Structures are given as C-alpha cells and as structure tokens.
C-alpha cells in the first residue's frame, strides 16, 4: 500500500508505476483506493462513478476500471459539504450535522476490497492525504484502517520538491502508533531535482533512525496524469502530445516514467515486500 507524508506527494503515480511493473511481469494486478476526495471522476462501462485516478491505475494494470477499485468517492460541493458516492452511486450529501454512517462505509470498503482481492494476484493500494493526521486518527478510513483490513505492507512516499522531506517522513513514521509503524516497510523520496548523491547522508540517517530502508529517489518528471484536486493546478502538470487518445497519451507518459524509474527504484525490494507477505 502506498501512503503519503502529505497530499500530492505522488502516491497516485507511484501506485500506477507499481501496477505497471507487476502487470509487465504478467501478473493480474488491480488498484484500490478505499476513499477518494476528488471532483475528477470517471464513469465505468457499467455506469458507476469512481475516481479518475483509480481508472488511470486500472489502465496501467491493463484492466477495465470497476467501482470496487474505489468504493467511496467524496465530491466537495461547497464549504463543508460534499456528495458521497458509494459503490459508484451517489448516496447523500454529507456535511456538518449530516454525518455518514461509518459502519455502512466500512462495510462497502470491505466488500469492494474482497472482490478486488479475489480476482487479482496483486493489489496495489493507495492511501489518501497525509498518513499521520493525528487529529483525525480515530476517523481514518483510507489509510491505516485500510492497510490493516488488507493486511498490506506500506510504502511511505515523501515529496522532496517542497523541502523538509526527511522531517516529513520521519515525523509521519514517528507519529504512527507502533502497530501501524510496523507496517511501514520502505520509504520513497519523490520529485528530486539534481544529483541524488547529495542526499546520501540524509537517507542513511533516516534509515538509521527508523530501521526502514529507502527504496529509491525518483527524479522529478513531467508526467501527465489526470489531476486529482485543485492543488494539482499549482504544480507543473507536464504536457501531452496533441491529438490522439488521451488515455493512450497517459499510458505512453507512464511507460516513459516507468522506464526511467527502473534506474532509480529498487523494484526487487518492492517485490520482496509485496511477495514476502504471502
């Protein structure tokens, strides 16, 4: 499961790369994100609405998008209010004074994950936002609650372009309760510009402090993928060649990044972490 130290750390892309990697090995892979907060949605062949990022990851797996890959979609409507899309269908508007039935939501997540897991050899899960929101820990659905449900090992991603990545990764790991901390099996540093050798001492210190290895430092790339939230408008979103099918452009861009990533990420370690669980 791919978790982030912040929103926009690159979870969606990293998860898509892992989907691609296992799909290229000929394994049957599927993406899963329990709950997605996004106004950019996709409609499946059977007419269900889901987050476009999971549709994108499904294509990366060579699979057809299905609502079970993203059973809850939250669509902000106005200040404090959002539409809840459950199992691909609008359920209700939630907001102050109109809470969602947590048990119903968790049941949908369990049901959806069971369906995805039953039909796949590998499931690449994605969390939401920062993984250590200590003010929201009790209400967590999309992060460690899902990791525990799926009994998944966790890869924690930090964005170095914003600075403070060591603090973000160390802080996130430290603020997790011990049983969750034990799930974190690797760090990944994303969006690095320049010569990665300068990071050596920092990475060694992080590994020493936490006992968790770093699977690699992924360089900044202008990968074009569907934007998930308005925060994406603030970042360089890359470009695609004109004309053609947008989905093909997305996959072509992803393949380019995947090829580049092979030199920077220890996929063997990732495989070991994923398969070691079985």
């Amino acid at each position, binding site marked *: 499961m791919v978790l982030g130290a912040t929103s926009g750390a690159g979870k969606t892309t990293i998860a898509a790369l892992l989907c691609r990697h296992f799909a290229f090995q000929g394994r049957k892979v599927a993406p899963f994100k329990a709950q997605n907060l996004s106004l950019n949605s996709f409609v499946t062949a059977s007419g269900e609405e889901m987050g476009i990022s999971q549709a994108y990851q499904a294509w990366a797996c060579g699979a057809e998008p299905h609502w079970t890959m993203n059973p809850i979609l939250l669509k902000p409507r106005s200040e404090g209010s959002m539409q809840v899309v459950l199992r691909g269908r609008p359920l209700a508007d939630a907001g102050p004074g109109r809470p969602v039935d947590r048990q119903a939501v968790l049941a949908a997540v369990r049901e959806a994950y069971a369906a995805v897991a039953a039909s796949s050899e590998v499931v690449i899960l994605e969390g939401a936002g920062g993984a250590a929101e*200590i*003010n929201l820990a009790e209400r967590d659905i999309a992060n460690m609650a899902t990791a525990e449900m799926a009994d998944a090992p966790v890869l924690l991603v930090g964005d170095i372009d914003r600075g*403070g990545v060591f603090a*973000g990764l160390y802080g996130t790991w430290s*603020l997790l309760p011990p049983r969750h901390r034990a799930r974190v099996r690797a760090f990944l540093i994303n969006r690095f510009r320049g010569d990665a050798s300068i990071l050596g001492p920092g990475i060694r*210190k992080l590994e020493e402090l936490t006992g968790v290895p770093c699977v690699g430092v992924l360089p900044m790339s202008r990968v074009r993928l569907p934007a998930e939230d308005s925060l994406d*408008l603030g970042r360089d979103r890359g470009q695609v060649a004109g004309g053609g099918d947008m989905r093909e452009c997305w996959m072509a861009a992803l393949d380019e990044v995947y090829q580049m990533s092979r030199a920077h990420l220890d996929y063997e370690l990732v495989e070991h972490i994923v398969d070691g669980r079985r």
Partner: protein
Amino acid sequence: MTNISGPIGPNEGCAYYPCHHPGQDCTLCFCPFYPCRDERLGRDVEARNGGLVWSCEDCLWIHRPDVAAAARAHLVGADRPAPSELQQLREAIMAKHPPQASSLMVLGATSGAGKTLLVAALCRILSDLGLRVAPFKSQNMSLNSTVTSRGEEISRAQALQALAARTEAEARMNPVLLKPKKDDVSQVVVLGKPYRDMDVPTYYGEFACGEGPSIVAEAFDHLRRRFDAVVIEGAGSPAEINIADVDLANMMTAEITDSPCILVVNIEWGGAFAYAYGTLMLLPPEQRARFKGIIINNLHGDATCLRPGIEELERLTGVPVLGVLPHVEHALPDEDSQDLASRERGGTVVAVLRLPHISNFTDFDALELEPGISVAYVDDPSGVARADAIIIPGTKNTVADLRWLRERGLADAIRRRRGEVPILGVCGGYQMLGREIADPLGLEGDEPCTWEGLGLLRTATRFDAYDKRTVQVEGVLASGGGAVRGYEIHMGGTVSEEAPLFLLRDDEGVRAEGACDAENMVMGTYVHGLFDLPSFRQHFLSLAKVTERPEGPTDYAGAVEESIAKLAEVVRANIDLAALLDIMGVRQ
C-alpha cells in the same frame, strides 16, 4: 546646544557623508553624549600619542532617526546639561530605543510554508506597535529580484517585507541572493552586487562554510544596531539533514544572530503535524531549544477539529502552538515559480511563455488586477495560438531559453501572431525578439557565439562584460502620456533601430528605452515592473482583444498595501501576540 538647528536627516551635502552608512541621520553630527563609555557602543583605542581614546566609529545609535529626534527634543534650546544629566538622558533614550534590536526567526517545515508573508505580517504588526523594524533573510534563492534606491539587487520578498515594515529596502536585508542559472549553477549576489557563479558543491563546500557566515553576521549586525526589531526568515526546511552542517540560511543564521525561532507549517497539503514533529526532532537538542513556538498556516475550514492534534503535538515536542492562521486571499507577489500554473482563470488571455529559466514573473501579477484578464503560463504552440496577447518574460538564461523556444516550435508560433496580437518581450524576452544576440566572450552561453534572434524587432544585443545593470527607472510612454516606473536588471546591452517604447528620466537627462514596432504591435523593454502603474498596462491590454475596460485604474501599490494590512490583521487576530512579543523580548 544651539548648534542643533533642526532635524536634517541624511546630510548629503556634507564632505564626510556618509561617515557611518548611507541614509544615516545627521541631525546630531557630533554626539552630545561623547564620550559615553558604553561598551555596547564604542571602545577604547590607542591614541596617536600613546594614551587611550574613546572611539565610537562603529556606533550607529546616535544616527538613528528616532534616537536623533528624541535627543534633539531634550537638548534643543536647553543649556548645556551637566555630564550626569546627559548620562541620565542617554539611559532614558536608550531604554526606549535599545542599541541592540530584538530579533525573531521564522523557519518553515517546507518551502512554501508561508514564511515570507508571515514575516511581512509580523514586520507590519511590530511597526504598528511603534517599533522600527527590519526584515532579514541571510540567503535567498529566487529569480525574482528587485533593485533598491541605491542600485543594489535584492530578493523581491525582502523588499516586500521592508515595505510592510515601513522601512527602506537595502541589500543588508538579503546579503546573499542565489539566482539559479542552469543545472546546479547559480549566480551568487552578495550585498546587492553580482559576486560570481557557483555550482552546488562550490557554494556549500567553499562559500557557505567559508566567507558566507561572516557576510551574514556583518549585515545582520548593522541592522541590529539601527533598528528596534529584526524579523528573520529562514529558507526551505531547517531539517535537511543531508546538508545540516552547511545550511547557512537556517539554523546557522539562527545561531549567528542568536535569535529565538518559530516554526511555520502549511496545513493545506496535509501532514502538518508530522512535518512539525519531524522537523523539530531531527534537529540537535541545542538547536531544537531555540524553538519557542509553532504556527499552523493556511487552514481551509474550521480550526476546532485540529485541537486534538495540536494538544498531542505540544505534548510531544514541548513547544506551544501560537496560532492557526486561515487561508487568506491576497494580491502579493509570489516568490517561487511553483505557483505559476494556477493563474489561468478565463477571460482575455495574456499568454506568458513559461521559459525554463523564467525570471521576474511577478511583472505580470498586475495584469490580473484588470477585470476579465487572465494570465496563462504557456509552453506549447497551441497556447501561443490561442492567446489574445503574448509576453516573452525575463530569463536567467537568454540563449538556452531561446533554443528552447525554437525546439518546441514556440518561436514559429510567436512569429505567426505578428500583427494579430500584441507581442511584448521583457528583458531576456526583449533580447530574444531582436535580430541577433552576440556573446563574444562566452558569458551567456558556454563558448563565444552569436545567435539569431526571433527577428521581430530591428535590434541587436551584445554581452560584453560580466556586469549587470541594476537601476530603478521612471519615465513616460514614448507614444505620449502615461507614467511608467520600474527597474532594470540585466546583463548585456541592446541597440535598436526601432522607435523607443519609453522615455526614461535619469541623472543624465531623458533617454529612449526599449523598442516598438507600432504597426505590428511588437514591443520590447528592459523595464521590469512596467505594468505596475496603469498607463502601460492599459495601453498594452487595449491592443489585445479586451472587451471590458475597468472603470478607474487599479493602483497596484495600493492593492499590495491593502494586502499587507489585511494579512497583519489576520495574523494579529489568530496568534498569541503577547506570547510572541515575550519570545522576542520586546517590552510593551
């Protein structure tokens, strides 16, 4: 004390001016308190005849305008006081205007945490309390620079903070400015003047642990002796453990200036508690001990849901959270190019070429003050084809970015719009619009060469020396009427066979600046900030297909001032100001 004629400020006519520093107040040319024998202000030195004599050549206190005014108020017209009375008077003035400023350093858990604007707001809040305040950032990496009235180049962020502090910007407020040039190489500007180009290993390996700290210490010390409070800004995160021992901009500056620190963390991206905790815990204990407060910034929504997280963070770190600041809309310029893509909002589109080394893109903030105008940062030919007006902005690397324009088909796309929409080149963009760019010494490229320009203006540019023109300018539109004000920052010079765009006044009289092919609506200039006043902005936009004109000209400086006041108000309302003043040691 009849020799005190009146408050005279800087006496620029004096043969000895400036005996201490430009801008000094000369009302009390000779210090009435001499020899004060206050070791904070002066020291005994050996006299020529062998004895000891009190020297205050390094004392700036009596040349502070507030101190000079206070001393004058007591002394003018009075009989010469007895030495003991003078001593008492000096102590009384000193209690109100201490010889050494209080300081506070604001550090961020990440870049973009909101340090710059928080420092600006604090400068304004302290100024509102009647203190004389200066901003300070030891080292800033930014391509958005401006020029002080003395022709020194500093980061625009510190100039903005100086404005917020109601004091004049000077190079000491940003003694080291790094301007990224190309991969891993930056131009290092020291005390407002280009010093030399350095790559990352040279900067960290030689400068940051060599001469850098003493440059920072001297600049800060000067400010500390002239102001009541100095608010210091860090850079990026202080917990970059891979470069901690050479990170001049953060904890090294906190130690050099011996300042208490607060940490600001942006909650918009999530992970704020983790970043705050991680930042503090990765610092060695003696550095962590400098942190006296945490500020959570940029919250969308209701702060009450953060309570459990804040209590846990305070319990784990022992550092109090001084406040949670809401997200604020404002008209203040951005520092980093990371914010560029978010600008497109519909309406008449002014396309700004998103050059790889784009500089001074704050020039275009003012365009968005006009209703119905949006600024889009484009990097593909279709963006150029759709534009209602095209701007090629400044760049840190004219030659590389010109090559980029050609490689991406942008050069041809721009040429195709000639005569259809206004095309403006600013600084590096102006150089590109001409016929050629000659670099006989290999200053701009890697080796001596001459490049063909876009050929849209009959101009030619030469880079003849590793020298930079940095000057503030004022003048009018050459086409008649309308004031323009701005500043020039460039290497290289341009000769033009076109009509000028501006007529600028300077010490030597009126000179023509820029180039304008009115028939084809192609213009070029070296003047940054050219849209800040409404005249040229409205002239330029009138050439674009703007359908709606605003009722009255919007005043950009007024909008900035309004934003500073608003930010200060928000900060005042949402932080524990008494605790903050206590941390600074400011007596109320």
